[in-house]
C-alpha cells in the first residue's frame, strides 16, 4: 500500500533540507523564505512504498497568497495520508501558529521540531513531551541538517498513516468562540466527516469564500458571524487569528525556556554592519562588484577561454599533456571514417560549432552560480530586499522583486520562478514582466561580441547594457503602474529576516550544478536541434531555379536568407536590416547563447569563440557602430529565450497576461533600439529623416508616460473594494 506523507511548515524552516535527507534527492536549499515554489515529490530512502511531498513554505492557511493556496488546496483536496509538520525550534511561536491550523485538517500529523541543535547551542530548552501533551499530537526532535531523528519522524508518520486514526484537535479557543463554532458545526450537516468539522466551521466563520466554493452544502452562518463580531469588537477572521496565537502563547509559556536574554547573537552583529545606515549600500555595491568581477572578468574569463579556445578550440594543456580540441578531434574521426562532405559540414559547422558556443560558456556560468547560491543560502538576499524596498516601491515593485532580478542576472528562468514569493499579484506580474530585462548570463556573449567587434572592447558597453536593463525595469515599473492594468495600492511588505548561517559546501555546489546542468541539457537538446535545422536552412536553397545544396559563397540564396529577408525590412529602421542579423536575433529566441554562434555560422566560420573574436573584423565591416549597438539593445530587451518564456507562462498562469508581457517586452525593445539608432545617426552624421522624427516623437511620448501625473489611490480603498465584491 502506497503512503503519501506531506512536509508542511513555515518558509525557511528546513523542509527542503529534510526532504533531501529523507529522499536522497538534490533540491537546492536557500536561506530566504520561499525557496520551494512548487511542490516536489520523492520516494523515501529505503522504502519505495512511501512518497514524500515537499510543499511550499507557508505561514498560514489563509486564502491570500499563491503558495498558501497551492499548499492548502493540495492538503484539502488530495488529502495525504499523513503530515510531517516541520517546526523551527528557534522560532517556535510563529511556527506553531501554522500547526494549529494544520491539526484541524483531520489528517494524521507528527510535529518535528527542527534545528534542535541550534536551540540547545543557544541554551534554550524545549520540552517536547509537554508540547506533545498540550497539542495532542506526537512531537519528535530532529536536526534535518545533521540527519538526527529524521527517520524516527518518518516512521511515526508512517505508523499514523496506517492507523488512519485522527481525533478532533484538542486545542480550544475562548469559551465565546467555542460556543459559536459549536453552533456552526451543528449547521454543517452530515456531509462532512467528524474530524474535519472544526476546520470547515472555522473557515466559514472566517468568511473564507474559497473553501465555501468547495463545499456541497454551505449553511448560512451570517448571524453567528455578526454576533461574535459585535461581541468581541473585531472581524471574525482576526478573532480566530488572535485566538490561535493566545493558545500558542499558552503552550510555549510552559514548554519553552529561553536562556540568553537580550544577548546579541552573531546574526545581530552581522546585521549591524550589513543593514547599517551608511554601510549597507557601499557594502552591497562591493558584493555585487566582486561577484561580477570574479565571475565575468577574472576567473570567468579564464574558465571561458579554457573552454572555448581549449576544449572547443585548438586544444589545451593538462600537466604537460597536449589534449586536442573537440572540433579537431571530431574532424579527425570524420576524416578517418571518410564521411561525406555535407555530413562533415553538418556535424562540424552546425552541431559542434553551435553546441560548442553554448557549452564553452558553461564554466563562466558555474562560477556565477556559485556566488548566487552562496548569497541565497547565507541569508543576504532578504537583507537586500530590506534595504532596496524603498527604491523599488517607487517603480511599482517591492523589495522582494530584487531577488528575482538578482537571480535573473544568472539565468532568467529561476529568476522568474523566484517571483512567486511576492504576495501581491500586481507586483508579481510586474516582476515577471521585467526580470528578463536584466542581462542574464547567456546575453553576456552578445555584449562581448558587439563590444569587441565595434567598440574596441570598451568596458562601457557592458556597463551600459546593465544600465539599459536596469533602466528598462525602472521605467517599465513607473509607466506600467500608472496604467489601468496595474492600478491599486502597494501591497504589504512583510518579510521575515532569517538568521544568517554558513551555507554548506554541498548545498552551494548542488545549486551550482543543478542550474549549470539545465544549461548543459539545453545545449544537448533544444540547441542541438536548432543548430541542425539552422544548418539545413542555411545550406539548402535555390540557385538558378533549382533547389539544392549550396556552395559557401551562395548563402544569400538559402532558405534562411529568404526567411530572414522576409522579416528584415521590419528592422531597417533599427539599422540592421541585414537578413543575417535578423536570423541571429530570431535564433536568440531559442537560446540567447545562439546569437553569437549563428552570426559566426552565417559569416562563414565553423567555430567562433564565445565572444566571436574571429568575426569581429567582418562584423565591423558590415554594420555601423550605431546599428550594432541597436542590435545589442534589441536582443537584451526583447522576448527572452523559450525556456524563460515557458517560465513566464507558468508563473503568469494566464494566456492574456503572458502575451501582454511578451508583446510589451518586444515593443519596448523595438522602440528603444529604434530611438538609439536613429538619434545616434542624427547626432553623428547630421542626417535627419522620417526615422529621426519618429524616434524623437517616441522619446517625447515615452517621457510623457514616465512623468505624467498619476493619482496614487489611497491605501485600503482597493482592499475594501475587493472585499465588497464578495
Amino acid at each position, binding site marked *: 500500500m502506497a503512503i503519501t506523507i506531506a512536509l508542511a511548515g513555515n518558509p525557511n524552516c528546513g523542509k527542503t533540507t529534510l526532504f533531501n535527507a529523507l529522499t536522497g534527492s538534490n533540491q537546492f536549499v536557500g536561506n530566504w523564505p520561499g525557496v520551494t515554489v512548487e511542490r516536489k515529490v520523492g520516494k523515501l530512502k529505503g522504502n519505495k512504498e512511501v512518497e514524500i511531498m515537499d510543499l511550499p513554505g507557508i505561514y498560514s492557511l489563509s486564502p491570500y497568497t499563491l503558495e498558501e493556496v497551492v499548499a492548502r488546496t493540495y492538503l484539502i483536496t488530495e488529502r495525504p495520508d499523513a503530515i510531517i509538520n516541520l517546526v523551527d525550534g528557534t522560532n517556535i511561536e510563529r511556527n506553531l501558529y501554522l500547526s494549529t491550523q494544520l491539526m484541524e485538517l483531520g489528517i494524521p500529523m507528527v510535529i518535528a521540531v527542527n534545528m534542535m541543535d541550534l536551540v540547545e547551542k543557544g541554551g534554550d530548552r524545549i520540552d517536547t513531551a509537554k508540547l506533545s501533551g498540550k497539542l495532542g499530537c506526537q512531537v519528535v526532535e530532529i536536526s534535518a541538517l545533521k540527519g538526527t531523528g529524521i527517520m524516527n519522524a518518518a516512521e511515526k508518520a508512517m505508523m499514523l498513516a496506517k492507523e488512519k486514526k485522527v481525533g478532533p484537535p484538542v486545542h480550544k479557543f475562548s469559551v465565546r468562540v467555542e460556543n459559536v463554532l459549536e453552533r456552526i458545526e451543528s449547521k454543517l450537516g452530515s456531509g462532512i466527516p467528524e474530524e474535519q468539522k472544526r476546520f470547515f466551521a472555522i473557515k466559514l466563520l472566517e468568511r473564507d469564500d474559497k473553501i465555501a466554493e468547495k463545499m456541497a452544502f454551505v449553511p448560512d452562518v451570517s448571524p453567528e458571524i455578526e454576533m461574535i463580531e459585535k461581541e468581541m469588537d473585531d472581524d471574525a477572521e482576526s478573532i480566530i487569528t488572535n485566538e490561535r496565537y493566545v493558545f500558542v502563547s499558552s503552550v510555549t509559556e510552559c514548554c519553552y525556556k529561553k536562556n540568553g536574554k537580550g544577548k546579541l547573537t552573531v546574526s545581530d552583529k552581522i546585521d549591524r554592519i550589513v543593514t547599517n545606515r551608511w554601510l549597507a549600500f557601499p557594502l552591497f555595491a562591493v558584493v555585487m562588484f566582486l561577484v561580477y568581477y570574479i565571475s565575468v572578468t577574472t576567473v570567468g574569463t579564464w574558465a571561458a577561454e579554457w573552454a572555448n579556445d581549449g576544449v572547443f578550440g585548438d586544444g589545451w594543456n593538462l600537466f604537460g599533456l597536449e589534449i586536442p580540441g573537440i572540433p579537431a578531434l571530431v574532424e579527425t574521426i570524420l576524416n578517418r571514417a571518410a564521411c561525406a562532405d555535407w555530413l562533415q559540414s553538418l556535424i562540424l559547422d552546425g552541431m559542434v560549432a553551435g553546441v560548442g558556443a553554448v557549452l564553452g560558456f558553461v564554466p563562466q556560468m558555474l562560477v556565477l552560480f556559485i556566488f548566487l547560491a552562496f548569497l541565497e543560502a547565507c541569508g543576504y538576499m532578504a537583507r537586500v530586499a530590506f534595504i532596496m524596498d524603498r527604491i523599488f516601491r517607487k517603480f511599482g515593485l517591492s523589495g522582494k522583486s530584487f531577488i528575482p532580478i538578482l537571480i535573473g542576472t544568472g539565468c532568467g528562468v529561476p529568476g522568474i520562478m523566484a517571483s512567486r514569493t511576492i504576495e501581491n499579484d500586481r507586483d508579481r506580474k510586474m516582476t515577471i514582466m521585467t526580470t528578463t530585462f536584466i542581462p542574464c548570463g547567456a546575453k553576456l556573449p552578445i555584449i562581448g561580441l558587439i563590444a569587441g567587434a565595434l567598440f574596441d572592447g570598451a568596458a562601457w558597453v557592458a556597463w551600459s547594457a546593465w544600465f539599459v536593463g536596469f533602466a528598462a525595469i525602472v521605467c517599465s515599473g513607473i509607466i506600467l503602474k500608472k496604467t489601468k492594468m496595474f492600478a491599486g495600492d502597494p501591497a*504589504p511588505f512583510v518579510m521575515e529576516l532569517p538568521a544568517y548561517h554558513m551555507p554548506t559546501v554541498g548545498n552551494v555546489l548542488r545549486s551550482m550544478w543543478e542550474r549549470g546542468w539545465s544549461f548543459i541539457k539545453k545545449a544537448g537538446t533544444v540547441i542541438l536541434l536548432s543548430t541542425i535545422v539552422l544548418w539545413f536552412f542555411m545550406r539548402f536553397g535555390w540557385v538558378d531555379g533549382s533547389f539544392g545544396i549550396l556552395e559557401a559563397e551562395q548563402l544569400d540564396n538559402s532558405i534562411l536568407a529568404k526567411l530572414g529577408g522576409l522579416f528584415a525590412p521590419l528592422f531597417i529602421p533599427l539599422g540592421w536590416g541585414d537578413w543575417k542579423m535578423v536570423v541571429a536575433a530570431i535564433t536568440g529566441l531559442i537560446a540567447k547563447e545562439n546569437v553569437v554562434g549563428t552570426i559566426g555560422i552565417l559569416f562563414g566560420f565553423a567555430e567562433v569563440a564565445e565572444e566571436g573574436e574571429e568575426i569581429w573584423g567582418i562584423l565591423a565591416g558590415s554594420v555601423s557602430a550605431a546599428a550594432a549597438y541597436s542590435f545589442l539593445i534589441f536582443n537584451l530587451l526583447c522576448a527572452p529565450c523559450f525556456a524563460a518564456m515557458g517560465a513566464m507562462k507558468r508563473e503568469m498562469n494566464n494566456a492574456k497576461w503572458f502575451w501582454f508581457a511578451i508583446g510589451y517586452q518586444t515593443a519596448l525593445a523595438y522602440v528603444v533600439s529604434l530611438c538609439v539608432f536613429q538619434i545616434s545617426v542624427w547626432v553623428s552624421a547630421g542626417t535627419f529623416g522620417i526615422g529621426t522624427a519618429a524616434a524623437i516623437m517616441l522619446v517625447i511620448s515615452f517621457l510623457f508616460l514616465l512623468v505624467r501625473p498619476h493619482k496614487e489611490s489611497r491605501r485600503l480603498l482597493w482592499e475594501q473594494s475587493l472585499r465588497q465584491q464578495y
Partner: protein
Amino acid sequence: MKTLREVPCGRKGKVSRLTGEGAVKRRIMDMGITKGVEVSVRKVAPLGDPVEITVRGYELSIRKADAEMILVELLPEEA
C-alpha cells in the same frame, strides 16, 4: 496611543489594536502581530523605510505604511 510607526528605534510597544482589514491585516496577524504581543523596533532601513522589528522572538521587516495600522502602547524604556 501611538502607531507602531511612531515608536522610536530601540523601544518596545504592546499591540493594542489593528486597524485596516482584509489581506493586509490578515498577513500582519499571521506573522504574529496580534493584540497584547510585545513588539520592539530594532532598526530603520538605510533609506528610512521599511523598519525591522522583533516580534515573538524573530525578526520581521515591515513598511512604515503598514506599521501605521498597528496601534501600540509605548512601553517604558528598559534600564
